[in-house]
């Protein structure tokens, strides 16, 4: 049947969105779906010695859940997961808490130096994690640290920023410094989106700014808090560049201090791709479960379909 012009244009109209989405779909497939599938495949594969004695060959084969069992029973990997969780428990509440505080303060009527403070607090967002770790590393390092210098002048003794548990606070402080401004901007912007009429009645009734913040503003910016919380969780569990950068400055940080350092070592130093893949899958699943729990907990108030 010959295609009529109307039919052809309908076909073209149906193809148009797919054509626009094609680059994204191709890249998404190549750099997300296939690597995920490949990682899962690798996580079930391992090397076994086939044949006996000196003639044994290393043969890659299906090993079932062996790699997962190895990963989950590896004290170093499990300890790394524990370290990341401990770090997250310190870092995430401080980043989000301070971001919310600064956002609420910026939104307070008649506050001074609003623009300056906003820009200054946002600025560290532009500093890469490695550079931020270098900056703070030198501020922690006894020989260059102005804090240690002052402590010496006051005869307060040496300050150890890399010990236990101070190291967790030192690392969390880097996350706080890097992340507070970005999260503050997101929360502040959703505060600005609240129509002022919402507070007017409360102000007329004599509510204080503190009460307005606590009772009205915070509940209304909850979706932004969930979003920032979600990104913080995803970012926290992928902790890598900060401890890797600080490692030469501190003896407390081992080569496998966090899960990603362990994964890197297994993959590229020990040539254990199956083990590295299993450890990655465990980490990714952990992040996914935590993210979904967080979203479920807040009743899918974010990421709703706006269509």
């Amino acid at each position, binding site marked *: 049947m010959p295609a009529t012009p109307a039919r052809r244009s309908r076909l073209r109209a149906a193809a*148009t969105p*797919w*054509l*626009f*989405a094609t*680059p*994204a779909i191709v890249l998404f497939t190549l*750099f*997300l779906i296939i*690597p*995920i599938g*490949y*990682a899962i495949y*690798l996580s079930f594969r391992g090397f076994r010695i086939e044949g006996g004695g000196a003639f044994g060959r290393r043969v890659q084969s299906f090993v079932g859940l062996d790699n997962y069992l190895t990963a989950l029973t590896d004290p170093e990997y499990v300890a790394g997961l524990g370290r990341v969780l401990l770090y997250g428990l310190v870092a995430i509440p401080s980043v989000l808490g301070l971001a919310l*505080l600064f956002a609420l*303060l*910026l939104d307070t*009527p*008649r506050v001074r*130096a*609003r*623009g300056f403070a906003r*820009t*200054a*607090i946002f*600025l560290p967002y*532009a500093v*890469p*994690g*490695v*550079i*931020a770790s*270098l900056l703070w590393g*030198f*501020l922690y390092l006894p*020989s*260059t640290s*102005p804090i240690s210098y002052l402590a010496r002048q006051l005869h307060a003794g040496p300050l150890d920023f890399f010990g236990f548990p101070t190291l967790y606070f030192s690392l969390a402080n880097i996350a706080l410094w890097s992340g*507070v401004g970005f999260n503050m*901007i997101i*929360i502040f*912007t959703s505060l600005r989106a609240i129509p002022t009429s919402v507070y007017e009645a409360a*102000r007329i009734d004599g509510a204080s700014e503190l009460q307005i913040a606590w009772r009205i503003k915070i509940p209304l910016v909850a979706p*932004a808090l969930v979003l920032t919380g979600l990104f913080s969780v995803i970012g926290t569990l*992928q902790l*890598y560049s900060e401890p890797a*950068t600080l490692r030469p*400055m501190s003896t407390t940080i081992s080569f496998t201090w966090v899960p*990603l350092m362990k*994964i890197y070592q297994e993959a590229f130093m020990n040539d254990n*791709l199956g083990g590295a893949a299993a450890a*990655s899958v465990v*980490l*990714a699943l952990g*992040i996914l479960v935590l993210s979904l729990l967080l979203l479920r907990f807040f009743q*899918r*108030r974010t990421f709703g*379909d*706006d*269509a």
Partner: protein
Amino acid sequence: MSAGDRTVLTRRRPGTARRPRLATVVLLLGALYCLAPVAWVVIASSKSPRELFTTFSFAPGSGFADNLAALGGYGDGQFWRWGLNSLLYAGLGAILSTLVSAMAGYALAKFRFRGRQALFSVILAGVLVPGIVLAVPQYLLLAAVGLAGTYWSVLLPVIINPFGIFLCRVFAAASLPESTLEAARLDGAGEVHIFVRIVLPMMVQGLVTVFLLQFVGIWNNFLLPFIMLSDQDKYPITLGLYTFLGKGAGDGDLYSLVIMGSAVSVVPLVVLVLVLQRFWRADLLAGGLKG
């Protein structure tokens, strides 16, 4: 008093005339906390290696020009090469990423087609996938096709940005009136023409935000180049400084080079953020999320 403050005053009728002093003080403390390390590194970069460990940290030194020359001279100007590499990865990567995201976001927001919801859900799920966990399988796959260790290995994986697609969809839905697109179609304009001449210009603010996010994201990315690259000449600046420090543990001369390098690499990003800040649409991040 600035114009911004005045609009706030008229918009919010004052309940009391008192200025919130404590709020201002806390904000200024926050600003100080965020600026102090940057100030420290700029000051420390002016110190000669000997001064670095002997003088008070916030006192400027006398070695700025020497340090800068030493940094530039290190490994036949390798540092500047790293800077150019970073610019290439982040600049080109972010431009391509923004374009791909804009096309996909526009398709998802402005066309009704079968599979639209499924496609969007898959891309949203991609936001939750920790990108860094993908780096090892991405390396193996790129190595299999002979691309590992090349510029492509760092550039290609960062072009796809699920969060950017999500933002572009939100922004396309909010900023492109159906009537404008319909009018252009009735005039016989082709779909590509409509996208280039109407859609992109109308979405420009949102696109700047997506570009900026991705630019900073790529510039800050460490693990991907760390895994992909072995040739130091292809390193971005973050990886270069990292290897610097690894070599320089216990070597005071390299410490001052690392500090100088940190100072130099912070400056262009700070300038970029300050310049692009006025185009920055944070409401796109915050406002688009109410379902």
